[in-house]
C-alpha cells in the first residue's frame, strides 16, 4: 500500500493560493479545481489527499493526526498552541494582531482594562507580559463594535488593511505580533513520512519570496 500524505487546507482565497503552491511543488490534484461539493480530493499518482476545512480547524486536524500536514495562520497557532511542528513561514495572508480602539481613546492605567477579542489566550499573554490587569470579553465576531458601544475599552484583533477600523472611526494603538500562514505538521507523521514532508517543505520554501 502506498503512503498517502493527508493535507488540510484552509477554505477560502488563502487556501486556493496555498494549493497553487503545492501544485507547483509537484503535488497536483486536478480534481480539486472541479466545481463540485466533494470534500476530499485524491491523486494516487502523487500520493496526496487534500481536504478543505475551516481555517481555524486546520491545526486541530493536524494535531490529532487526521491530517499529516496543513496550512494555518500564526494567529490560530498562537491562540490554541497546538502540539505540532511549525515548518515554514509561507509569507502569505499577511496581517498583524493589534490592539485598537476609538481614535480618541486614552489608556487609563488606574483601571482594569476591558479587552474584547476572539483571541483570549494571545490577549491574556500579551497583557500579562505588561503586567496589566485586564477583563477579557470573549466575542466570536464583529469585534470592532465593542468599543463603540462601550462594551470594552479596546479590542485585540487581526488587522489587514485597517479599512474596517477607519470606517468605524477606530485606530490601531499597538501591534502585538505579525501574522502569516505557516506550514504545520503532525509530530508523529513527521517521523514516519519524513522524506515526503521534507520534500514538500523544501519545494514550498523555494516559492516563498520574502518581501518585508
Amino acid at each position, binding site marked *: 500500500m502506498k503512503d498517502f500524505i493527508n493535507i488540510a487546507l484552509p477554505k477560502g482565497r488563502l487556501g486556493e493560493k496555498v494549493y497553487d503552491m503545492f501544485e507547483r511543488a509537484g503535488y497536483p490534484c486536478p480534481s480539486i479545481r472541479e466545481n463540485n461539493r466533494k470534500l476530499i480530493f485524491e491523486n494516487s499518482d502523487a500520493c496526496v489527499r487534500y481536504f478543505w476545512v475551516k481555517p481555524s480547524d486546520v491545526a486541530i486536524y493536524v494535531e490529532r*493526526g487526521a491530517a499529516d500536514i496543513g496550512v494555518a495562520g500564526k494567529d490560530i497557532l498562537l491562540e490554541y498552541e497546538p502540539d505540532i*511542528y*511549525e515548518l515554514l513561514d509561507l509569507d502569505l495572508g499577511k496581517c498583524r494582531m493589534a490592539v485598537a480602539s476609538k481614535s480618541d481613546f486614552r489608556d487609563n492605567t488606574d483601571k482594569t482594562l476591558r479587552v474584547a477579542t476572539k483571541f483570549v489566550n494571545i490577549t491574556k499573554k500579551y497583557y500579562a507580559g505588561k503586567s496589566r490587569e485586564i477583563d477579557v470579553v470573549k466575542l466570536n465576531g464583529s469585534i470592532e463594535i465593542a468599543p463603540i458601544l462601550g462594551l470594552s475599552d479596546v479590542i485585540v484583533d487581526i488587522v489587514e488593511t485597517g479599512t474596517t477600523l477607519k470606517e468605524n472611526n477606530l485606530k490601531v494603538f499597538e501591534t502585538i505580533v505579525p501574522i502569516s500562514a505557516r506550514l504545520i505538521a503532525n509530530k508523529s507523521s513527521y*517521523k514516519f513520512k519524513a522524506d515526503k514532508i521534507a520534500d514538500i517543505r523544501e519545494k514550498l520554501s523555494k516559492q516563498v519570496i520574502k518581501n518585508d
Partner: protein
Amino acid sequence: MKLKSEYMRTEEKVIFALRELYSKYGYAQFKMSKFEEYDLYVKNKDFLVSDSVITFNDTNGKLLALKPDVTLSIIKNSTDSSGVQKLYYNENVYRVSKNTHSFKEIMQTGLECIGNIGTYNICEVVTLAAKSLSAISDKFVLDISHMGLISSVLAEINDDVKTQILKFISEKNTHDLISLCDNEGVDSKTIVSLINVNGTVDEIKEKLLAIPFPESAADALEEIFTIANILENTQDKDKIHFDFSIVNDMNYYSGIVFKGYIEGIPTGILSGGRYDLLMNKMGKKSGAIGFAVYLDFLERFMEETKEYDTDILLLYNDTDKLAEVLKTVDTLTTQGNRVLAEKTVPEGLKYKTLLRFE
C-alpha cells in the same frame, strides 16, 4: 489461572508485556496510593504537564491531591545510596486535557532509575524505552536529544528569550527563531543547525561534528557519542533517532531526553530523560533517569472490531431441563466457543451459529 490474550484489550496486553519486560531487567514494581500531599506539587509546579490538580481535604483537614504525576512521588520516597534503585510503576494519573478543559484519568506506566547513574544505566533505560515501544508496534521511532547540549548553546541568553527560543526549537520553527535572534542580537546559526540535525546514529555523527559548539558543550557531546556508539549495536538502531528539537524543561532535565512515537498515534506516547536537576531541587544528591508510557491512546489503536458478538447463540425455554442447558453451555465453552444463552434472539446481535436446545 490461565489468561487468553484474545480476551484482553490492547492496553491490557501492553501493560502485561511491559511489566514482564521491566521485571526481566530487574526493575521492581512500585505500588502507590492515588493520593499525595498537595504540598509536593506546589513546590514543583513547573514540572507538571498541566497546572490544575484535583484537590480535596482528608479527614484531618489536610489538603490532598489526586496524583497528576508519579515521578515526584517516587523521588520523594527515594533515599540517597551508593547503588542504583530500579523501579517501575503502573498507575492512573489525573490531568486536565488541553482540548476539552476537563479532568481525564490517564493510565501511565514507566520506570525510574535512581542513584549513581552511569553510562550503562542511561543506555539500559534508552534501550528499554525502545523495547517498550516495540512491544506496542514495530513501527516506532525513539527520538533522543540532550538538554546539556542545548543549554550550553543557549547559555549566554537571558531567561525570557530562552523560553521563547526553546518553544521555537520544539516546533522546528526556524523562521521565527531567526527573526527573534536577530531582534535580540543573538547568533542563531548554531541553534538552527542543531535543530536541523536529525536521523539515525550513523546519519547524525558527521552533522554534529560540523557544528561549531561552544567549549561548554564538550561533556554533552562526548556523552552523546558514547551513547550513540553503544546504541549502534542494539537491534532497534534504525528506529532510534537523534532529534535535537526534543526539549524538556531546562530547570529539571540535565542530560539525555527522549520521546517515543508510534505510527498511527498522533502524539508522542513515551517521554523521559535524565532529571538530576529535579532530584537536586528536591534535596537529593543522586542522579536519576526514567520515562513514562501513556497508555490512554492505545484504546483506539489497533482496535479490532470483532466479526461476531458470540460464536454460538443457544436458545432455550423455561420448560427445558435447565440443568441440562447449563451443562450444554459448559461443554460448548470448554470446546473453546463463546456461548450466549438466551430465550429469544437479542436485537442486533451477530452470531456465528444458532442452536436450539432440544
